[in-house]
């Protein structure tokens, strides 16, 4: 991990959390679709990052969001779960010749289908964890499921838009 890792990812961390707290907090579709875009920070971390670091960073992210949302521990728990599952999903999705050293989570490099499976599965797990931890019970299960599905789609679409806008093809080839 060199210093450029640090600065770029600290900036990403701040950007995603600010985006989450100031903008996405007020943006709810049909009072059911929530966008937890801060998960993008965890999903976009380098592929070869160590598992322990990933877990700690995910905890820090979730915890920061929790403080603003007054949902002590819920987002942190979901993010840690997401970070734990991320290496497993990455293993499942390994391309035929393995990951290159400079491969990153980038829709242009890894391809659309790879990115879709990777992001959708992990976002779904994360959102399911958040909404079930929030209600604790299994009452209104259809309402919760609808919330999970709509929110997953919403977050995914925003994440793809971010990828297409800010993760250029050029940088990936470097």
């Amino acid at each position, binding site marked *: 991990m060199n210093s450029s890792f640090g600065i770029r990812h600290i900036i990403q961390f701040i950007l995603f959390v600010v985006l989450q707290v100031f903008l996405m907090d007020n943006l709810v579709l049909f009072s059911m679709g929530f966008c937890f875009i801060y998960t993008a920070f965890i999903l976009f971390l380098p592929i070869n990052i160590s*598992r322990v670091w990933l877990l*700690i960073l995910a905890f820090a992210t979730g915890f920061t969001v*929790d403080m603003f*949302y*007054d949902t002590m*521990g819920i987002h942190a*728990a979901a993010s840690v779960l997401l970070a734990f599952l991320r290496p497993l999903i990455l293993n499942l999705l390994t391309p035929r010749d393995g990951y290159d050293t400079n491969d990153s989570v980038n829709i242009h490099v890894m391809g659309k289908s790879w990115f879709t499976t990777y992001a959708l599965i992990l976002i779904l797990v994360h959102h399911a964890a958040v909404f079930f931890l*929030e209600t604790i019970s299994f009452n209104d299960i259809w*309402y919760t499921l609808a919330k999970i599905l709509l929110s997953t789609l919403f977050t995914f679409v925003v994440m793809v838009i971010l990828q297409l806008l800010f993760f250029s093809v050029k940088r990936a080839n470097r």
Partner: protein
Amino acid sequence: MRNLFAFIYRFRAFLVFVLLEVLCVYMIVRYNTYQGAAFFNSANKYIGQVLEYQSSVTDYFRLASVNTTLARENAALREEVMRNRLEEQADSTDRLDTLYYAPSDTSKLSPYVLHAGRVINNSVRRTNNYLTLSIGTADGVMPGMGVISSHGAVGRIKTVSEHYSTATSLLHSQLLISAKIKSNSTFGTVKWNGGNYRTALLDYIPLHIKPAKGDTIVTSGFNTVFPEGIMIGTINSVEKEQDKSFYTIKVKLAVDFAQLSYVYVVENTLKDERDSLEIETGIQPNE
């Protein structure tokens, strides 16, 4: 020993994962049950400052509606002052509304104190909604106090820092408010079950009562959080379900939670005395 360390090293990711999850679950459980001790929430000094800065920007866009609400409230208060003055002149105690306390009642002697505060963070669409207010212990706010706005009951203070406080909104799955139907004083409990933020449920109204659509629901004053007679809402629909011994009543809330800007924190100066007396008698506080 070496093997043990090797084992720990090999499964370090899993162990860290379990450790962090246990920590999270501990925080969730503690924050949900143990009131007042959580430090890492939006009443925190730094988080409060960020939220206050945000609301100082967004508040500009709502100034018109905030001003109208405040002006309307002023008008209502002036009207009440004038009415009281007239009544004082006429000295016609028999015309006083039943909502007013009888003169012999001690709760009239030391009334509730209101602390005005600005809402700097608010949500209405989550399962458990909270408000952050820009007043704290420095202004006399304590955990457990009620929060009202000019339209009606809003919630209850949960944690307090020096200059900020968080309140559990009425739109919280675990906040119950002791309420009564104003016309016949039948008391029940108002709670919110998620979904639409304009409607809540009124529970425990027995079947021999005949609640009608449009009846006013106010706070009962049976606990020390809210004064008696604070507006909660009006009855939207009354349903009698077959296997239940209580009505299912939907209440249209008087407060539009999405539009909250200024609220009042209610301090009951006799709270300690009343609570300790009730606990001594063995009555559990009903909230």
